[in-house]
């Protein structure tokens, strides 16, 4: 049923529009339109003389695709009115008259309107480094109101402002685009960029100029006292870190502090810069120590080494045994002014028997004391060697009988 309908339809079409299917002899069909250049957006009509009244289809191909149109007969001439999708787009347009004895074909050019409707602007990268070597690139595609890129050699003003300088450069389009490299200066800040072409202006674009890589810097330590109390905090800070053009490095630059103690162990702390200064903190040691501190911005810059000494606060540990020597009380643990040491100082009790380590008991000092109990189920009656270790001091009771 559908097929039957298609045949009928095709047959009807052939009756109505015979030029599509029949090729007839014609000798006098000629292009009358002499114009070969058209502006986009203007109506384009191709006229052909036609002595024998055949209506030929016209094949047209432009930048994006191909279509077939049919003519209007006006005063014995065939007039082909280009649809807007052809007449609005710039570029070469080729055409061919269909079903003619001799091939009749040609081409014309549609040039873009010389007014700018939009300045398509592409800017990147969005942040660059100070120092004059790095740059951002401004790419402008001036297009007319029909979305055609303007013709080659259209001039575009590329403008940029940075601190007190304002500059305008004239660039011209080539291969549909115009571009300009905008270099950083030695200072950080924000470059504002805009463009203009044929009286049309773009919107404002900006690019951040960031500091270049940091240069070497110095560090300092700040603490409330020099005692190794295991409680107070020492704060390390860098000097204001700058690049080689004296620009303060970007906030958030990561600085690592490496602390090496007498035993060669390394402690690490880190911080990020705010206004060029990075700070990091470390708790005081709980025993006498000598620290060597160096800060590094990985792969870029470092500081010289500084050293810090921490003084011992506890000179002696008082230990008392009671309850069959099973109860050990350590303390009072006193700090540099004879004040009770702040809570949290670690106290360890090592229990050995016949030279073999049996158990380590560990507690934090509370209100100046730490107490331990040697439980009967772990430590049966006998003689033990008991060492008390706190604040770097080791006090050993060689043979202590426990019952």
């Amino acid at each position, binding site marked *: 049923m559908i097929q039957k309908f298609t045949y009928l339809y*095709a047959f009807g*079409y052939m009756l109505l529009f015979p030029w*599509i*299917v029949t090729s007839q002899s014609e000798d006098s069909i000629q292009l009358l339109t002499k114009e070969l250049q058209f502006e986009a957006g203007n109506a384009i009509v191709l006229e052909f003389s036609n002595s024998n009244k055949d209506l030929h*289809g016209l*094949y047209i*191909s*432009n*930048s*994006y*695709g*191909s*279509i*077939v149109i049919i003519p209007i007969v006006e005063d014995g001439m065939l007039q082909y009115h280009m*649809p*807007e*999708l052809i007449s609005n*787009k*710039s*570029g*070469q*347009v*080729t055409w*061919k008259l*269909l*079903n003619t004895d001799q091939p009749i074909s040609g*081409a014309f050019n549609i040039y873009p309107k010389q007014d700018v409707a939009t300045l398509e602007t*592409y800017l*990147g*990268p969005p942040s660059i480094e100070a120092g004059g070597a790095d*740059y*951002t*690139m401004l*790419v402008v*595609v001036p*297009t007319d109101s029909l*979305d*055609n*890129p303007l013709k080659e050699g259209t001039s575009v003003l590329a403008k940029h402002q940075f601190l007190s300088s304002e500059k305008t450069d004239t660039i011209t389009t080539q*291969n*549909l*685009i115009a*571009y300009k*490299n905008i270099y950083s200066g030695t200072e950080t800040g924000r470059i504002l960029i805009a463009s203009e072409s044929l009286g049309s202006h773009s919107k404002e674009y900006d690019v951040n100029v960031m500091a270049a890589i940091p240069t070497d810097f110095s560090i300092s330590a700040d603490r409330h006292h020099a005692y190794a109390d295991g409680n107070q905090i020492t704060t390390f800070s860098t000097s204001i870190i700058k690049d080689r053009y004296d620009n303060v490095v970007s906030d958030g630059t990561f600085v690592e502090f490496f602390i090496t103690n007498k035993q060669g162990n390394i402690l690490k702390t880190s911080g990020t810069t705010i206004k060029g200064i990075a700070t990091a903190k470390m708790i005081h040691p709980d025993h006498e120590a000598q620290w060597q501190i160096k800060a590094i911005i990985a792969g870029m810059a470092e500081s010289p080494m500084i050293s810090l000494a921490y003084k011992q606060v506890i000179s002696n540990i008082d230990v008392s045994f009671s309850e069959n020597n099973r109860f050990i009380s350590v303390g009072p643990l006193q700090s540099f002014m004879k004040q009770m040491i702040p809570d949290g100082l670690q106290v360890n009790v090592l229990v050995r028997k016949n030279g073999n380590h049996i158990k380590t008991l560990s507690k934090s000092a509370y209100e100046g004391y730490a107490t331990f109990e040697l439980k009967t189920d772990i430590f049966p009656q006998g003689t033990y060697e008991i060492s008390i270790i706190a604040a770097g001091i080791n006090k050993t009771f060689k043979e202590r009988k426990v019952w």
Partner: protein
Amino acid sequence: MVGLNKNILRSLLILSYIIIITLVVYGISAIYSYLNTGADRSKMLHTEIKKIDQYLPKVQWTPLNNEGRPMDIQTRLDVENDYLDAWYIKHLAYKTNSKQGIDDYYTEHARENLFDIIDLNASENTIVESTTLKHHPTLEFFSEDGQLAVITDNNVVEFKRVYKDNIILLETTEVASYKVILLLEDGFWRIRHMVKFKVETYKSPPVLTSVKNLSIKGINYYPQATPWNMFGDDFDTDIISNDFKIIREAGLHHIRLFVPYEGFGSANVNKDKLKKLRQVLDLASIHDLKVMVTLFDFYGDYTVLNWTLNQRHAEMVVSALKDHDALLAWDIKNEPDLDFKSRGAHNVMAWLKSMIDLVKTTDPKHPVTIGWSNIQSTSILKDKLDLITFHYYDDHEVLEKDYLLLKDKTPNKPIAITEYGMSSYSGTWNLFGSSEKKQAEYHKKMQSIFSKNDIPYMSWTLYDFTEIPKEVVGRLPWRKNTQKHFGFIDKDGVKKASFSYISKE
């Protein structure tokens, strides 16, 4: 009795319990796995690669020397890939007048231009079947942030076939140059602007004028055991070498070989097969034989959008052999006129024209021909071919007359018969058929016509075959059995009476 029934009842109960539990467990697990589908992270990111060759026009980049940032090879390949896909999607869109896929390859503004054309063509019932065969892109500009590229695509060769109401209005090959702005959006290089700035007329490569007086005395060759599958696993150079010796000693100088399209790996030609083909030509060279290579055997798809795949195939085969001293000529396709009815004459002809141009551009030295199935077809495309060849299985009585007429019509082109022969089969399927004697008489007669009129010839074929693939003559036994007995040597290796007339009266 009661106890037995109870046991049966019990076991039934237990069995049904097990079945129900199994079903429930299966159901739960099916729901669970259904809910888990799509959760696969690799699927979520579309990272799996599903690339098939669908569009391979010849792309020749000019060396990168662009303004702006230097482009690395990987990025250039990405740009090329997406740019070609944009063309492919466009061809598909105009062929079907649908807008599918265009969004991926054209930016928001650019796609409007395509949509306008699709809308108009759809309303007018115009269909444009097209493909591009060659691209010569130059990278003009690459932006510092790597988001914008400008290329000039010079001399794009584009074939178009325009239909209106399912009637072909036009077939045209155009050469145009484009300037294209591409933007990197969502990981795709999309076309933002495209301007055709130059059009030229397409020029086919010239017909060779130096091909005169080919005194071809030859035979179509397949090994006895592997007809129509010469380059498969049973490829044996000793057998082929021996056969070539027989052919040469029989006084023949030429052979005709067939390269199956799909058997050789379609668009991406199998290196091993190509090596075997080269080995065959090397053997031919040793035995002082010249080879006519017939391309696209067993291939019958002339769809415009697949042309680029066919052309990459032909290009690889032709460029691999074009400097071989045993090469005589290229036969584009065996008997393509037989496809006119089923595939449409215009489809086949346009394909052939384009393929002739490609082979001639790849190898400008060797003559190009098409082995037409009969002498009447030889007028087709005769101005594009260097050598007119046809196959002759008709009555030998009229050959002389037909040949002289053809010779008269095309005085400036060499003409050759590249297949002729007669089966010696008679049997269940053809009781009043041929015989070896009749076959011998036929060949004797043919040779006398050839020598009298100086006709170059190639006979079909050296051996009787035991197996004929169904693709050759179909499944009908009377056809298959006839096809098995065209040889000069029978399946046991014994020379038939006709062998005496393989190269002389």
